[in-house]
């Protein structure tokens, strides 16, 4: 179960951290409809994170609930991929991050609907519909920005170039995930890479955007190693909860 706990934290932290980033964009979107849409996506992700973290805490058996895991863990204990923690430089960056992540998350959750862990299967079952919308939203905006104005195309390409090094980590396989995959609990993320490549390539082609050629591979999130922006995200997220030890809200 220690392995399952780790795996649940990886998935739960991905959703939590991305929800946190998107939540910060509320009141800052380019139009009201996008305030609504980004909040929707953030809510879906938060709704995925909560049962995953709660389940991790339950299996761990050390009395930590979803809030203890979200608010009282330190940076090195967060297992999200580095992609989701990347800051929102502009709307193109927000969309690029959504595109890369949702094209990965959708086939992953589809495969996880049959997980041997009931909670995981339940979250995946509910999440598939949500993430299909997230992906559609990101695809539509990628097309509009890629095939919109000169500026939007330049910004969208720059955002993709900037975030591309963080994509490889999504598909990293390791002993933990492989052993859980054998037991039917997890899905080996490497298995969803072909689908991701096909989906992303198709969108980029239609949007007139180039697939970035960066060879750099950023990694470490699954081992708790994060980019320097992440500590500030946590400080903001955890400060109030940490300021009142033992209080409930």
């Amino acid at each position: 179960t220690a392995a399952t706990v780790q795996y649940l934290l990886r998935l739960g932290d991905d959703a939590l951290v991305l929800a946190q980033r998107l939540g910060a964009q509320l009141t800052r979107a380019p139009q009201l409809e996008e305030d609504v849409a980004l909040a929707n996506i953030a809510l879906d992700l938060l709704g995925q994170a909560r049962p995953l973290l709660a389940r991790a805490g339950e299996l761990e058996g050390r009395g930590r609930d979803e809030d203890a895991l979200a608010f009282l863990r330190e940076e090195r204990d967060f297992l999200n991929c580095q992609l989701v923690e990347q800051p929102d430089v502009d709307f193109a960056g927000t969309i690029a991050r959504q595109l890369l992540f949702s094209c990965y998350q959708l086939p992953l959750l589809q495969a996880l609907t049959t997980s041997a862990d009931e909670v995981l299967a339940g979250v995946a079952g509910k999440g598939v519909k949500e993430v299909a919308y997230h992906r559609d939203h990101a695809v539509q905006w990628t097309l509009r920005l890629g095939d919109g104005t000169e500026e939007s195309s330049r910004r969208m390409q720059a955002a993709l170039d900037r975030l591309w090094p963080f994509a490889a980590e999504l598909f990293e396989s390791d002993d933990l995930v492989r052993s859980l995959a054998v037991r039917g609990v997890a899905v080996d993320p490497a298995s969803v890479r072909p689908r991701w490549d096909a989906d992303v390539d198709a969108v980029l082609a239609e949007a007139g955007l180039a697939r970035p050629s960066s060879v750099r591979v950023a990694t470490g999130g699954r081992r708790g190693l994060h980019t320097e922006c992440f500590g500030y995200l946590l400080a903001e997220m955890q400060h109030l909860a940490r300021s009142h030890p033992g209080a409930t809200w």
Partner: protein
Amino acid sequence: AALAERFERTVAAEERIEPRDWMPEAYRKTLIRQIAQHAHSEIIGMQPEGNWITRAPSLRRKAILLAKVQDEAGHGLYLYSAAETLGVDRAELLDLLHAGRQKYSSIFNYPTPTWADVGAIGWLVDGAAIVNQVPITRCSYGPYARAMVRICKEESFHQRQGFEILHHLSSGTPEQHAMAQDAVDRWWWPSLMMFGPPDDASPNSARSMAWKIKRFSNDELRQRFVDMAVPQAEALGLTLPDPELRWDAESGHYRFGAIDWTEFHEVLRGNGPCNALRVEHRVRAHEEGAWVREAADAYAAKHAARAGAEVAA
């Protein structure tokens, strides 16, 4: 003249004026101003609470708050749509907001330094908004009345959530209780000011009442709010910062102290703690989003052109 008569008759019969109907120009203008101000208040009102989304102290509270601020964006959308039925468009109205030529509720020019402010806004500000808005569900203009039905339903949900936040804090640790009391101390008087100036200083009210846009006077609504809030404060275990507040058995109402209208007018004139901050934040989001809106328009135009070309081919 026949048109005017029909308008008067419709209003008098408590029936709805619809966008296709003739209406007096002053009625249209009054409605546009009021609905726009209401819409702007929803949009600007996202900021003080939005300030706590990234810092909410539990995941459940974070989700509730996210949903609430999202609802406010949704309310803004309905209301701008209602205004658009009167022949203005959202972009124009936003420009007026950004240029400071249309107002939003002054209450949102106060800061939210603590988490308890989220509770106090939900309980008091949404509470006051509901008292203000429920009568508008019977407003003579159809689209506004219908938008308000939906909004009021959600607002009362928000108000209960605000109450619940404060209730939890009030019965929590001493620090949490103090935080709740402090927030109520800061929001109480501004909430009372939300109903606008006293009746004897509210020149436009009479006409709005005649048109059945407005149903009750500012002071009537304020009294209704106080009568509702006082027992709720007791249930919360919190005090209201008014030494003159007392039950008046004779009238069946709570009597309250004098409101500091100087503060109200200062905030209204732009000198409140957060006026500059709120408008700057809104303008920045709008300006930083300009290239995105342009891209969406360009894309739509290209694809409409292509679709047209395909049809022609």
